[in-house]
């Protein structure tokens, strides 16, 4: 029973983290209609910003979110305005050119990070790293708990933004029909740039809150790009609630699989669920909730 509870709690907490990683990807995929393969790499950039703030300026990793999020937001806006948008305008030979562009952006970011910070593994050490509450034999990692709470807040915030504000309506309109939105006076180009920025800011927040739990090196990104992709499909494109359920479902599948079956195949359990969802629920989990 203790083992079941521990797996459940571990799975939920890691799921919260997966959710914020998936949230940004889901938003970008919904509006830009592309898989952002530079997603994990943008998270890596934000992690390096936080790590530098901690290492050189002594700023607590959680406080450095005020640096890493704006930095990644403006970087992503710049990337989408000057590198991704021009490709939408052109009738290119391959419609996938934008996706290829994100691959290129990702590579450049990784090598820049290697140039600036070398391939060394980095991590932050704070008073709360490695701290855990012991609740009757079940251990709850405090940094993971904080990341979980933040991910809930971010999801709620994004939900509010999309559903209740003008900007959100414009984003949803562009996602549904780019041309029609333009005819209604929405600047599709601006919305695209902004969406890429917001999506990247979310992954930046994820990266910063992830730093005290994990570690950092230039190639940390790709694995999380793949995770984000799975979560997005699990949850359903462009859905905030879908992203958080997708994240939690994926993490629970991994954790329970690892505890009760064999941990060597941890990644396979998530992918089995992924396949089942694709076969039986092609719209993702959001087709159950309708939001």
């Amino acid at each position: 029973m203790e083992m079941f509870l521990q797996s459940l709690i571990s799975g939920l907490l890691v799921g919260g983290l997966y959710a914020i990683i998936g949230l940004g990807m889901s938003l970008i995929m919904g509006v830009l209609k592309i898989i952002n393969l530079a997603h994990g790499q943008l998270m890596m950039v934000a992690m390096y910003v936080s790590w530098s703030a901690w290492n050189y300026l002594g700023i607590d990793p959680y406080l450095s979110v005020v640096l890493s999020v704006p930095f990644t937001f403006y970087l992503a806006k710049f990337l989408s305005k000057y590198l991704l948008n021009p490709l939408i305008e052109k009738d290119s030979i391959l419609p996938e050119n934008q996706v290829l562009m994100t691959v290129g952006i990702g590579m450049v970011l990784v090598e820049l990070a290697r140039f600036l910070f070398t391939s060394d593994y980095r991590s932050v050490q704070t008073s709360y790293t490695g701290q855990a509450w012991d609740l009757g034999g079940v251990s709850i990692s405090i940094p993971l708990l904080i990341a979980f709470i933040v991910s809930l807040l971010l999801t709620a915030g994004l939900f509010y933004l999309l559903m209740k504000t003008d900007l959100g309506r414009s984003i949803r309109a562009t996602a549904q029909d780019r041309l029609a939105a333009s005819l209604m006076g929405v600047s599709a180009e601006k919305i695209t740039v902004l969406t890429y920025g917001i999506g990247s800011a979310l992954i930046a927040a994820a990266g910063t809150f992830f730093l005290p739990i994990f570690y950092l090196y230039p190639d940390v990104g790709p694995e999380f790009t793949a995770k984000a992709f799975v979560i997005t499909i699990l949850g359903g494109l462009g859905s905030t609630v879908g992203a958080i359920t997708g994240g939690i479902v994926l993490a629970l599948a991994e954790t329970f699989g690892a505890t009760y079956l064999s941990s060597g195949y941890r990644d396979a359990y998530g992918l089995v669920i992924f396949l089942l969802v694709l076969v039986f629920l092609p719209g993702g989990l959001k087709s159950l909730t309708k939001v």
Partner: protein
Amino acid sequence: MKFGKLLIALLSVSFLFSFNGCSKKETGPIKIGVILPLTGSKAKFGTMEKNAYELAKAEINAKGGINGRKIDFAYEDDTGKPDVGRAAAEKLINVDKVPMLAGGYSSSVTFAAAAVAQQYRTPFLVNTGSVDKITQPAAFNLTTKDGDKFYIYRMNPPVSEYASGLETMLSQVIKPKTVFLIHENTTFGTKGAKSFAKTAAKLGIKVLGTEAYSSGTVDFKPILLNAKKVKPDMVYMISYVMDAAMLMKQARELNFQPKLYVGAGAGFTMPAFKENAGKASEGVFSATLWHQTLPIPGAKAFYDNYIKKYGGDGPDYHGAEAYSAAYVVANVLKRCNGNYSKENIKKALDKTDMMTAFGPVKFTSYGEKIHQNKMTTYVVQWQNGALKLVWPKNLANAPIYYPIDYKKIWK
């Protein structure tokens, strides 16, 4: 027209000469290929080994190089992937025309590159790739009698022998009754776990369970819980550096206190392990192949010079292996008497018997292996934030800290 023909004639003649890479008149540097992971998740180790090669190169060339000629290393990045490693070996052999390969970090990449070297009959001095089959001719469709057809040589011991020093320490001092194995699901991890299970059987230690994981896992708690449930005396882990740190950090969070934690080299001896795991690294034992305080001539000097040149926390056994491999290469080339053909280099490799900062190097045959350098391994332990050599006793620079009081060291 005439000029054109002349040009073509000249070009084709020069083309002919370009094949003859070892002509005696050459005075430029002798280029040796080195395959290492310089990008990707194993880049940290690859960079350390490259730095060590460069350090050795500067020293060798300052002392007159190879009979007056300089030595040079052509590095190819294998990115930690076997297919890229294969391509890297092919490029070095066919495009750069190197007469010899060195390097080789991860087991699966090294094995893939070794197959290429064997195919092109190019000597390959492996410095780290540790899976047993690399020096087993059977894996290349040869037998142990085919030494003259087998082009792979290895400096470091195979993974099945990493724990030989640990074995004596366990049987003489700690005497655990049960063990739980946790390993990475790669060639290195799986083979290492299997061979340690055999060792355990020999020592009368009962294996209570084995768990594999994939590198880069965020949450190790399911594995650790399964281990905690069966209450082993000892936990034996085969992991690269950051997984090692995550394992120990989360073991501390779970308050999982077996009598001892032991790492199988690889990640557990690196400074980055201590930095990331923090207090959770205290008291952890690890098998190791080298330590800077060992009474090997040149070991401490290498360690100090490395820090002087590259800063940071200094090299562990990986650096020492690469540094010494560079010296073995230089020694072999010196004994080629100016004829740097692949066959001549191979003959010189066979006769290698020298002392390096990593210990004595001599390629011998035993069991199913040939061209394998046999050596003793040691045991280190993290004590008060420093890595201390604790076994064998006559070489140790600190007593073994055991039994471990987790309440004190994990606080």
